[in-house]
């Protein structure tokens, strides 16, 4: 695997060269935080701030996306539901963190699982080349190393950049990454020795550790019936903040918006925290209480996904939900509580049932 040295003086030149073949996306400063946006001509990605407020999932999974459109008006397309034209031209996502890139890999498992593919998500994902930025200064809320990722983790990335002061060392991980580097004109090969040391230092800088070792072996029904859910869910206000900032949350709702004789089938992010998320057409709601919804969210992230895919938890330790939850429900605390569930207390045999 090649390692290429990019002098910071060459950075903008390379970005400009890329614009010929790629649409560029990267973190852009908004108020006191950054979010991933398309980079305007001459705009560079903001790489010196902590991770973005919202995750980059909106780049491949827009919050509101038109899928199809139809019209009742007489004409060639009358009464036909047609796909809305989209721009799937190649795009470069610059400055995505390893945790968010791993999250894309996890979401990919859901949106391309052999039986079913989500063409909207896959088209955007496949058109994207991910140039990651390693985290040398993790936040106190980052726990990626406990969640199957890490500040120098390579999953989901095509290139991994490491800031070395006056230059970046770019580890080229895939063909797509190689193509991008060539298009940018970044080609001076370098010795990647410095990377190993930086990786260790970054991993040591992660202070937040969460135990997940027992989650796989714990009994699902015992976790479901545990007595700590009432205490954990009390403060939850059932907003959608955690689900919307989370890079691995993938739920959406499809709806037709009708304007007279035209209509557009749109999909919007949905949240399992919303009360009507699970309402049936009969009116019955299997998760009508706050406790049920909160329990479902954490069970999905930390247990159901573990059981279904055997790839670790459905959380990458980015810490956004911890930082943004208005009532400070902390997934790290919940995970520890779940992980340390005392099975003895629930063993039906021992209780003589």
């Amino acid at each position, binding site marked *: 695997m090649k390692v290429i040295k990019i002098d910071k003086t060459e950075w903008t030149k390379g970005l400009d060269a890329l614009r010929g073949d790629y649409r560029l996306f990267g973190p852009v400063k908004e108020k006191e935080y950054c979010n991933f946006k398309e980079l305007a001509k001459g705009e560079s990605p903001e790489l010196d701030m902590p991770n973005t407020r919202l995750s980059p999932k909106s780049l491949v999974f827009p919050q509101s*996306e038109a899928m199809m459109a139809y019209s009742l008006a007489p004409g060639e397309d009358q009464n036909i539901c047609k796909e809305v034209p989209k721009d799937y031209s190649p795009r470069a996502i610059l400055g995505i963190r390893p945790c968010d890139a791993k999250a894309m890999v996890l979401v990919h498992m859901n949106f391309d699982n052999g039986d079913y593919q989500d063409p909207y998500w896959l088209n955007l994902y496949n058109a994207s080349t991910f140039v990651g930025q390693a985290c040398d200064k993790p936040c106190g809320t980052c726990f990626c190393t406990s969640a199957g990722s890490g500040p120098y983790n390579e999953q989901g990335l095509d290139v991994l950049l490491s800031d070395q002061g006056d230059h970046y060392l770019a580890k080229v991980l895939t063909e797509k990454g190689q193509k991008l580097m060539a298009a940018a004109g970044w080609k001076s090969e370098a010795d990647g020795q410095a990377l190993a040391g930086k990786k260790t230092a970054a991993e040591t800088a992660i202070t937040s550790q969460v135990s997940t070792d027992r989650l796989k072996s714990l009994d699902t029904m015992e976790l479901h019936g545990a007595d700590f859910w009432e205490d954990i869910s009390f403060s939850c206000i059932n907003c959608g903040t955690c689900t919307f900032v989370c890079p691995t949350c993938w739920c959406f709702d499809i709806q037709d918006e009708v304007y007279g004789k035209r209509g557009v089938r749109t999909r919007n992010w949905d949240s399992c925290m919303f009360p009507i998320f699970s309402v049936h057409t009969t009116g019955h709601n299997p998760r009508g209480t706050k406790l049920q919804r909160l329990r479902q969210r954490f069970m999905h992230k930390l247990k159901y996904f573990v059981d279904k895919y055997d790839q670790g938890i459905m959380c990458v330790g980015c810490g956004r939900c911890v930082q943004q939850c208005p009532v400070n429900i902390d997934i790290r605390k919940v995970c520890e509580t779940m992980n340390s569930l005392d099975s003895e207390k629930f063993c039906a045999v021992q209780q003589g049932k």
Partner: protein
Amino acid sequence: MKNLLEHMGIEEGRLHFSWISSAESTKFVKVVSEISEKVKAIGPNQHFVKQEAKVA
């Protein structure tokens, strides 16, 4: 309602309220004509208009 809409940027003079009984046809004509004049003078409304959802 009027105050809040105007606070958000709807022009003053676009929203009008009037008590008119169905027996007050003359008043109805007068008020409608007045309002039409006033609103026409402001011009076509550009705000709170949604032709189609602006989505990705």
